[in-house]
């Protein structure tokens, strides 16, 4: 009887040890792609010079959340998702142009132009982000309305 019990135990452990266990949380393996998350605060305060179109008023405080979809790494293409929310946690539907570029202050140069795609209200995909060397980089986020930068925030990272 004991031998049968031991045999069953060995069988069960042998079976479940083959490959990924269905009981383990596999979220950790996916987290690494987006584990670097940045949160920044911005404020758009339009002066009278920028109020050319009432429907484009975007005043208010917002939070910028950026999540790496791929990267950050050197040389390879990196991608990032940017989500804008207001103080109530609702999507901040910025109607202007979001311009993003990276800059290496110690070397005094930038990189290839970053492609910014508006996916939905307050959600942008950034692609063609190329860090060409290791060191400290600044990621600049510029919010543009009527050709004027109404808010500019940045986040630094070291590769």
């Amino acid at each position, binding site marked *: 009887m004991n031998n049968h019990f031991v045999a069953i135990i060995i069988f069960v452990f042998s079976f479940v040890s083959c490959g990924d266990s269905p009981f383990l949380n596999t979220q950790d393996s996916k987290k690494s792609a987006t584990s670097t998350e940045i949160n920044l605060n911005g404020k758009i305060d339009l002066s009278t010079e920028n109020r050319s179109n009432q429907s484009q008023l975007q005043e208010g405080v917002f939070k910028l959340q950026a999540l790496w979809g791929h990267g950050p790494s050197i040389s*390879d*293409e990196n991608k990032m998702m940017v989500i804008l929310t207001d103080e109530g946690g609702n999507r901040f539907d910025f109607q202007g142009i979001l311009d993003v570029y990276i800059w290496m202050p110690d*070397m*005094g*140069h930038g990189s290839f132009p970053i492609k910014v795609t508006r996916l939905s209200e307050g959600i942008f995909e950034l692609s063609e982000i*190329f860090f060409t*060397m290791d060191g400290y980089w600044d990621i600049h986020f510029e919010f543009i309305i009527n050709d004027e930068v109404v808010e500019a925030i940045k986040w630094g990272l070291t590769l």
Partner: protein
Amino acid sequence: MMKKIVLSLLVFFNFSLAIANDVCPMNFSDANLCAELMWNDGPYLGKVSGFTVKFWGAQDSNQINTSPEYSIKIYSWMVMDNGHSHAGPALTWNEITPGVFISKDARFFMGRMKGYWEVKVDLSQGGVIVSSQAQRVNFE
């Protein structure tokens, strides 16, 4: 008389060098191969560019395409005036026919850098670079 001889030799030497470069623009001497890089699209700054690299045997005057029996790596390289050098955005390539490699996603930029770009081609065997050549990128 002596001056004329020296001058003639100089002209002859430069002429021979020019011909040699035309015959074998990228001379992978240690691999006994020649190659030529031609731009299909561009080259551009701040926009995707495309090029083709063709290989042939170094002694082949007919320049029949020959697939290199080496691992190949093609990449962009920035040589900055301040003495620093670094690779550019990663690019991909495919051997569309034996000895003909095409890349459609080369990216170059200046970003206020001062210097110049090259396209470099490394031929490796067993993880060791056997021969390497670079071609400077001239933007219009």
